[in-house]
């Protein structure tokens, strides 16, 4: 499961379509066997919102889905003392749970707060882009389950992929570019 060298996985997120329904969170937990058991910090993907902004009746609320950005320039990977955090040939940032000593340095290093302590795994955990699925030609769970198809997933090395086409035709941004992480989550404007 090392991934193919010629792939460049990326996710394009159209936050304007997100209705904050939490399907992506539940699907991810099911797909990856994650048991939160009521612990609030256990999630691989999440919806950020500042809540309802403004004063009645002039209100707005925005939702921004997120997860591990699978950074090409990878802070968590650099700080990991045991190589529990490693890179696949296609750039996916993965975890070898057995090697993880839960020193949590990577949690502090990640600018996106993408990691958490998994009591279940006795290790740090985070989104894998559902590597076990994409290597068998399926979509990540958060992508396929989404009612409004907020997330589009694919290979940026393939100019015909939907992600390549969208990024070629739409304005987009990345989160915290100043962190220099070269993330692989792209947000449409």
């Amino acid at each position, binding site marked *: 499961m090392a991934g193919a060298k010629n792939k460049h996985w990326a996710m394009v997120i159209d936050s304007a379509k997100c209705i904050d329904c*939490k399907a992506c969170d539940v699907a991810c937990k099911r797909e990856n066997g994650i048991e*939160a*058991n*009521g612990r609030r910090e256990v999630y691989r993907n999440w919806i950020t919102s500042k809540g309802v902004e403004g004063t009645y009746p002039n209100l707005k609320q925005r939702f921004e889905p997120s997860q591990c950005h699978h950074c090409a320039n990878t802070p968590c990977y650099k700080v990991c003392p045991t190589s529990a955090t490693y890179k696949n040939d296609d750039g996916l940032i993965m975890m070898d749970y057995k090697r993880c000593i839960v020193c949590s340095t990577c949690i502090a290093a990640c600018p996106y707060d993408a990691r958490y302590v998994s009591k*279940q795994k006795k290790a740090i955990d985070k989104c894998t882009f559902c590597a076990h699925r994409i290597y068998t030609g399926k979509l990540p769970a958060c992508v396929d389950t989404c*009612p*409004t198809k907020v997330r589009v997933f694919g290979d940026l090395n393939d100019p015909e992929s939907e992600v390549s086409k969208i990024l070629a035709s739409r304005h987009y941004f990345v989160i915290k570019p100043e962190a220099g992480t070269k993330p692989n989550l792209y947000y449409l404007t």
Partner: protein
Amino acid sequence: MSISRRNFLKGSVAGIGCLGLVPVAGMRFAGWAEAGKQPSGVLNYVASSCAICTNKCVFRGQVVDGVIRRLEPEPEFTKARGMMCARGNAGAATPYDPDRVKYPLIRTGKRGEGKWKKATWDEAYAYIAEKTNKVVAEEGGHRSCIGFVSSEGTYHEHYWNQFREIFGSPNSLRHPTLCLSSNIRGNMSVFGTYPWADVKNSPYIILAGADRAESFFTPDTMDMFGDPRKTIICLDPRFTRTAAKATRWYPIKPGTDMAFALAMMHVIIGENRYDKEFVSNHCVGFDELAQHVRQYTPRWAEQETEIPAAEIEKIARDFASTPGAVYYPGRRSGWQGEDVQMRRAVAMVNAICGSFDRPGGLIPNASIPLRNYFYEPAWYDLTRPRLEADDVTFLNPRDGSWIAWRERALRADPYAIRGLFIYKQNVVDSVPDRSKTLELFDKLDIIVSIDTYMSDTAWHADVVLPESNYLERFDPPYSLAGIVPYVVIRQPLIKPLYDTKPGFDIIKGLAGYFADEDGDFLNEYFEGDVESHASNFMADYPGGLEMLKEKGFFTDGRKAEIGAYRSGKSAINTPSGKVEFYSEDFAGRGLDPLPTYKPVEEIPENRFRFLVGRHAIHTHSMTAAFPELNWHMPENSVWINTRSAKKLGIKSGDTVQMKNRTGGEVKIKARVTEAIRPDCVFYAHGYGSLSKAKRLVHGKGAAQAAILESHFESISGNALMHETIVEIRRV
């Protein structure tokens, strides 16, 4: 925008030495160890359909070593646009819920005390039959004294109806009068059908009372929000997720939607913007309508709705001039006063603009007809009319009118109800004014609940008959109407984990303990089995059943034919055969032939109108205790506007006491927010459960049924869910 879970870090790291799994959700992986087998890790898929709400989305169920892992959306099932919502995903855990009902139970303690003895099926049936036959004898043999309650969603409901009919009771009660009966009736009177909106092709949608971002309806939710180019006008007293996504949101004063619709028609007709071709060729009673709406100016409507007149005018003009614009028939707006008339007014806005039977407009549904399920009728001389037969103008005899019926049953008027047989519907939580439902329960000699889990209704029953979970069951084909109709099915992903049975087996089993007037046992009326019925249902579609089993759905490619009513190919099913504005039928029944506005009751100072509503992670009272959903909302809280809260000295997190006008009272935490009108309050459904076997929500927050007063309107029999006025104070 950033959130941080790093503050959880300290505790987590410190706690890492004492790892341990809490057993609740860990259950689902326990199967492997128990079976003593080496896990193979091989992933198998079973096609089936969801049972967590009414949409019945089709999925590919992942099963690994006999354990359900996940329910993946079926991408080819276009009704759901290939999605699976949070609830549908969380349904995968339901067979493994440690609190589910695992075998038949007979009550040993007081009702609602939670003391049970485990019973065999035969013991349970015999117990029910003995009690029931005794009360029927006491009532002189008339079987109408047993009420039969059921709910859609289980594809076995037709067997239940059969049982009721051959048992000999007319008293059938279902969910619609707690939901959409008024909406159906209003649209029926205008269009002769209850059409659905062609959201996909509509560029301009007025959404009132349909929080489609949180109250999922396939494919409307997907089409509405998956396409940010659409203009969505949201009228809702509460700033919902839909309001957040809408182009414009208007916190309309509850109960004034009819004023908004009438003023729109005032503008559209007054400015000659209506669809003359459609109106003259396909409608009747337009002149009366035009005359009628002259009184309803936007300036007047502003006073009623609190939406500025200029905005109403603009919306009316934009609506009339945008091809494919639709005024979506939402269910939750209104539920006050003249509810059916309000629905008619909304239907008429669509009709005068020709937004019927055209792309983007209201479209009469298509469906894929299945072969009928036939059975022999049984005849009883003593059967009486249903209790509330005279209380509702258009009473659907299958659905009944819940509140009207319960009022009659409480008074034993015109005869006593002695027992309730309840299949799936959680009446204790879903019918407004829980205390009245429990008061009725107190009068009953026998209460039977067929359910998959210990709902508040099952909790108060005498006998609980556990139905197998929807992921353990074969359910016969079910025809889903729509602009693009489908047939769906359910297949077991796993074998039943406990001593449970599918609906058909339970119903037939119970029927075997009752006899008709000739002494023939009622189970003899049930022929074949679910498999044979499934084949028969699909007999007109060669290969259809095979497709259902392979994919979980069937289609023969049919769609609603848009334009069929305009061309005359399909007939409009109203008395006049036309779209009706002025209704002779209504006039003949002593009802307003045109929708006439009646002002809503003013809310006294420091009182609030209680609103109901949905949340995307919950289906009614069913899902609040699903661990993966409860994680997102462990408790409900009452929304109260910042300014109103300030006046009452209430802060977020304070416990408040709410009282309605009929003795209903709850305690709940406050959530102070800008996102609701200052004269309204709201809290989510499903919490404050009485059942101790819904551990995550027992005693957590408050139940809607505990605060809702019971009111209904008499044209369709629909509950008026928004006629509850409460006072609130900090405790």
